């Protein structure tokens, strides 16, 4: 009897371990996505342009972080790289987007689209097409804690911590400072803010710069954990758009919920082995093994990477404005 209960409790421990680790990984991925999606959402709300080059700034952040950490170390890079990328973003807004603005939204969209390609090629020219060796700083290269028998790396806890600090800072800045109040107003009533005499152009530049700096910070901290390579932007770009569409274009809380949702869904889906074959078993229709074999036998784990896109399709069918969307697309 005690033997059986020990086996059962060991079984539960294994499941609990998997759930805890998956939650941590999922939340981490979600927060990283939100770092980028928040910038994208705010830029869209204020300037009305969906910045196709947003993931490229994430990539720039990673490469600037790599290069600067090679010269002066990781910790200065953490500070300098996002500032550099943000300055670049502000320059793009001032000298690029603002000129294109008078030609309409489509022109702005195409401009950012072209910018994304240009940034990718420039990165390839400077750093090559292979992954670069962006390492975790030795100070953080240990395991933070052990859950049952799995180690959780300290660097991932650091990523979580940095993201939370940044959000706390942003929240305070938005709610408590004067410029934050103006930005909040401009989010929903940009023309009114202009009429009231505030320098809307300067605010736009600031918002674009901060938004891209956020994406760049995500790049600097994700670079050592994920692969830093010139295809980074292309890999993460599509998921970013899924996040903003699912969350609702123009809604920051929506982007937050959507990021966490997608992060958790993608991570948990990997642990699930269910398939239609497993669910129906002997009740499967006759042609399940032949015509439908591919669909019937595929497990949730196998399609985990496309789950976000399935979510996108469902949202667009049932709730096109997104979970908490405030604006019509």
């Amino acid at each position: 009897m005690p033997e059986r209960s020990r086996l059962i409790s060991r079984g539960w421990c294994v499941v609990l371990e998997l759930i805890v680790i998956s939650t941590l990984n999922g939340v981490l991925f979600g927060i990283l996505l939100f770092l980028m999606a928040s910038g994208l959402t705010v830029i869209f709300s204020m300037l009305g342009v969906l910045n196709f080059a947003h993931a490229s700034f994430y990539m720039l952040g990673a490469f600037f972080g790599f290069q600067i950490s090679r010269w002066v170390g990781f910790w200065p890079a953490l500070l300098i790289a996002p500032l550099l990328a943000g300055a670049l973003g502000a320059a793009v807004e001032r000298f690029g987007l603002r000129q294109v603005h008078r030609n309409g939204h489509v022109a702005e969209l195409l401009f950012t689209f072209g910018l994304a390609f240009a940034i990718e090629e420039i990165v390839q020219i400077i750093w090559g097409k292979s992954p670069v060796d962006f390492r975790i700083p030795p100070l953080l290269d240990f395991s933070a804690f052990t859950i049952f028998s799995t180690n959780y790396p300290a660097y991932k806890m650091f990523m979580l911590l940095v993201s939370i600090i940044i959000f706390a800072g942003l929240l305070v800045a938005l709610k408590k400072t004067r410029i934050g109040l103006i930005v909040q107003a401009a989010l929903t009533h940009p023309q009114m803010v202009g009429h009231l005499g505030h320098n809307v152009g300067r605010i736009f530049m600031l918002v674009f710069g901060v938004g891209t700096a956020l994406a760049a910070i995500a790049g600097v901290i994700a670079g050592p954990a994920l692969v830093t390579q010139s295809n980074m932007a292309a890999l993460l770009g599509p998921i970013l758009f899924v996040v903003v569409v699912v969350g609702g274009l123009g809604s920051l809380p929506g982007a937050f919920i959507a990021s966490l949702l997608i992060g958790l869904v993608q991570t948990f889906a990997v642990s699930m082995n269910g398939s239609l074959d497993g669910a129906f078993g002997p009740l499967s229709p006759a042609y399940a093994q032949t015509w439908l074999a591919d669909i019937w036998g595929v497990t949730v784990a196998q399609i985990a990477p496309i789950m976000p896109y399935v979510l996108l399709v469902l949202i667009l069918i049932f709730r096109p404005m997104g979970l908490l969307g405030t604006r019509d697309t």
Partner: protein
Amino acid sequence: MRRLTIGIAFALLACSHAAIAQDTVKIGYIDPLSGGGASVGEVGLKTFQFLADELNAKGGILGKKVEIVPLDNKTNPQESLIQAQKAIDAGVRYVTQGNGSSVAGALSDFVTKYNDRNPGKEVLYFNYAAVDPILTNAKCSFWHFRWDANSDIKMEALTNYMKGVPTIKKLYLINQDYSFGESVRSAAKTMLKAKRPDIAIVGDELHPLLKITDFAPYVAKIKASGADTVVTGNWGQDFALLLKAAADTGLKVNWYTYYAGGTGGPTAIKQANLNHQVFQIAEGIPNLGNPAADTFEKALRAKYDFSLFYPRAVNEMRMFAAAAEKAKSVDPVKVATALEGMEFDVYDGGKGTMRKEDHQFFQPMYIASFGERTEKEPFDEEKTGWGWRQAAKIEAEQTTLPTTCKMERPN
């Protein structure tokens, strides 16, 4: 008058181009040089360039200089066909490829159809690493030659070794979701069921090819299954990042792999502290004690700072030269006829044969483990200090498997 000058200039250009073309043998290297496969594609390219230099130092092939033409296919079958056409337009008559059986299938098909429609302008396809068995079975082609043991041969060798390891009780399979990964998992399941029915297969995972950068969820699943052994055909970035995630979470299992030695693999294994717990089946490793191989290894490391992961590429280039010498021509049809059935002294010692029926090369294979070295293992990998140690050798005759190939030969 101006038009005449321009016309003459173009004619001269064309003539000079043709003259240069006669003196070089161009080999198109169609493999990823960007994206997820770039880390291994670049190493492969440099290896082939080193081998071309080696041949050129001895006068080239029949007096002609060997030139490697790099063509980036981004591990994409459609892109590979575009690059193959580009190569053919540039006068290339030999293409070589290895990273991805998905690409290999498309290339083999393309080359076969092209040769059918363009007699006299045939192109040969030298496959140095794409090991889906179908390429030398149902989809075999006279124009395709494979220098790497196919997936079934490798799994046969691995499972024979695993038969004698009683500590394996729970086995986890994780592979890339495409033709090769599928062939690894089905061969593993069938062969293990026959040789060790007592082993419980506690997981059978497929993940997208070269797209995942964070394997933490997959490693968590391996942990949860309670497996003591993992069998994987993952290569390149997919293997390196999988082991990196295993290192991060402290996963301690034994790994039986095909491509643990690829770029990034040894570093990740050392990071995971898996001393002689990772095994690889390959046609050669640096520490086999063969003097000629040792000299080559030292020269390659001196030039490029990476170790030889492709003894099969060495065999391919050397046999190509030998076949051209035998046929006294670099015409693809004559070279192909000379290549099939050819016996050759392989890079790591011993003899290999290019079987005529299916163009599959059979050679001695080695199972090796990666870990701390002794004086018998002079070479380490990726500056980790650890190196490969032979655990078993399988003679060429023991690796032979039957084929279902019904090859259509040109008359």
